[in-house]
């Protein structure tokens, strides 16, 4: 069953999974060479949604580039906004008011939960269960309502500004978020019953899709994929940015390295995000949300700058090379799933196609972020 079998190459055929395939969550294509239902090897073909984000950075001014961040990873757009805001703030040396930092954290964490909910729903859909998707989207709608009331959009937020935010949150948002936290704690219990404990799911995930630590290092896997393999790495904790050091939260780590471990990491992360939001709401200071002195025109001094944030999928890094002009000279977006997906090729060999697709789902792919 699960033990790797020796495959003979002479009886293989090529199965194209994608670019349009229900399991690839978008337009990813995996050329699988199959021996029966076993995968002999897999070659991932990217670029079906390459949207020239890096080139556009050279054509747009720094504020104009902000909306692109929401389109990179549409599920956790806030984190990407945050990363970009961080690197420009670092380059221009802009101070961010305390209140803005707290609101940033709250929205980012809410967005992280929303992102994980989409993943959970879509993942169980990959495994053939349809109903959890509906529940997840229903819960997610409540987050989207909260965020829409603040940011004005449901998905591709463009809420952060350099040094601050587009607008302030109101009391409705705070009460709404608190209500959501209580509601969602209950829902998490429900998911644990409906999905996590399900024997079919466990059978499909436990022991499948092994990723070990060395593999993570070689491929640069981060986020839940690394944490599912026993690597205690979370940018929020290891390389603290914003006001994350103020909060008491745990980084869930599971050592099994299988699909189920990654699954549990994400489920646990939702719980931790709730904790962070709760603390942030308690500590939320008053004050302005935009800095008093902010350069009229964003023109970072020449040099290169780097910033990393923890998105829902892992370590998102931005390398920005400035030549002192209005536009960036070069903007490199280091997206987490790009590295996470890369290890699929190696890890899926000898797997059954059903397991491989379950494994692929456990990597939590967002294709536009990989293709950029």
């Amino acid at each position: 069953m699960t033990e790797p079998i020796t495959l003979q190459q002479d009886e293989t055929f090529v199965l194209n999974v994608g670019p349009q395939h229900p399991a690839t969550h978008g337009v990813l294509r995996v050329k699988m060479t199959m021996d029966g239902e076993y995968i002999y090897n897999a070659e991932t073909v990217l670029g079906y949604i390459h949207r020239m984000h890096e080139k556009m950075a050279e054509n747009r001014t720094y504020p104009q580039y902000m909306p692109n961040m929401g389109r990179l990873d549409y599920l956790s757009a806030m984190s990407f906004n945050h990363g970009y805001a961080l690197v420009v703030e670092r380059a221009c040396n802009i101070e961010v008011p305390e209140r803005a930092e707290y609101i940033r954290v709250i929205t980012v964490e809410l967005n992280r939960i929303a992102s994980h909910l989409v993943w959970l729903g879509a993942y169980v859909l990959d495994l053939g269960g349809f109903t959890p998707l509906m529940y997840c989207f229903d819960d997610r709608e409540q987050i989207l309502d909260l965020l829409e009331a603040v940011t004005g959009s449901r998905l591709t937020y463009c809420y952060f500004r350099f040094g601050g935010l587009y607008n302030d949150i109101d009391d409705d948002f705070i009460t709404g978020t608190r209500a959501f936290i209580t509601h969602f704690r209950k829902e998490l219990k429900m998911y644990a019953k409906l999905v996590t404990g399900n024997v079919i799911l466990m059978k499909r995930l436990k022991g499948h899709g092994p990723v070990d630590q060395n593999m993570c290092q070689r491929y640069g896997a981060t986020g839940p994929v690394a944490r599912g393999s026993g690597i205690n790495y979370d940018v929020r904790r290891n390389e603290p940015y914003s006001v994350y050091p103020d909060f008491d939260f745990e980084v869930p780590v599971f050592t099994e390295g299988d699909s189920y471990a990654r699954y549990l990491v994400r489920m646990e992360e939702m719980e931790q995000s709730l904790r962070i939001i709760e603390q942030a709401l308690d500590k939320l200071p008053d004050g302005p949300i935009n800095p008093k002195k902010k350069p009229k025109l964003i023109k970072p001094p020449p040099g290169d700058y780097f910033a990393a944030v923890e998105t829902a999928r892992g370590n998102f890094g931005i390398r920005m090379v400035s030549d002192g002009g209005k536009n960036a000279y070069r903007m490199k977006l280091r997206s987490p799933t790009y590295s996470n997906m890369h290890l699929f090729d190696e890890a899926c060999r000898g797997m059954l196609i059903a397991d491989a697709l379950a494994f692929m789902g456990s990597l939590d792919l967002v294709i536009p972020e990989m293709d950029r």
Partner: protein
Amino acid sequence: MGGYFTELFTGAKSLLDGMWVTLKEFPRRPVTLNYPHESVKMYPRFRGHIELIGNQEGKSNCIVCSMCQRACPSGCISLAGVKPEGEKKKVLTKYILDFTTCSLCGSCVESCNFNALRFSNEYNLASTRKEDFIMDLLKRLEEQNQ
């Protein structure tokens, strides 16, 4: 052998747990919003496409400074104005928004220092013609005034 039956039992129990969860949802009222029959009201910060704000006389506040045009990442705004004889400010004569390339980032509204722009609440646009979304906002303002 003990493991065999334990596995069977825990497996069956987890399945029943799951079935109980879905069964509880079965008789509940759906959360659905029956869209064409009822519709949600937009949040004050909702970002539809932009529209011009009219002052008391129903004229636009715009003084044709082109800040919005410059702030727009995707260049979807084009505007023109003339300076009538004897007036200090320019008067807007044309304000075209190509909504199909807009990314609803809000830069234009933010950059406007004269309270001339705001987001509309048009959330359910759909048409069989692409040209419907290249909007003449001045015309829209006039229609709103009526």
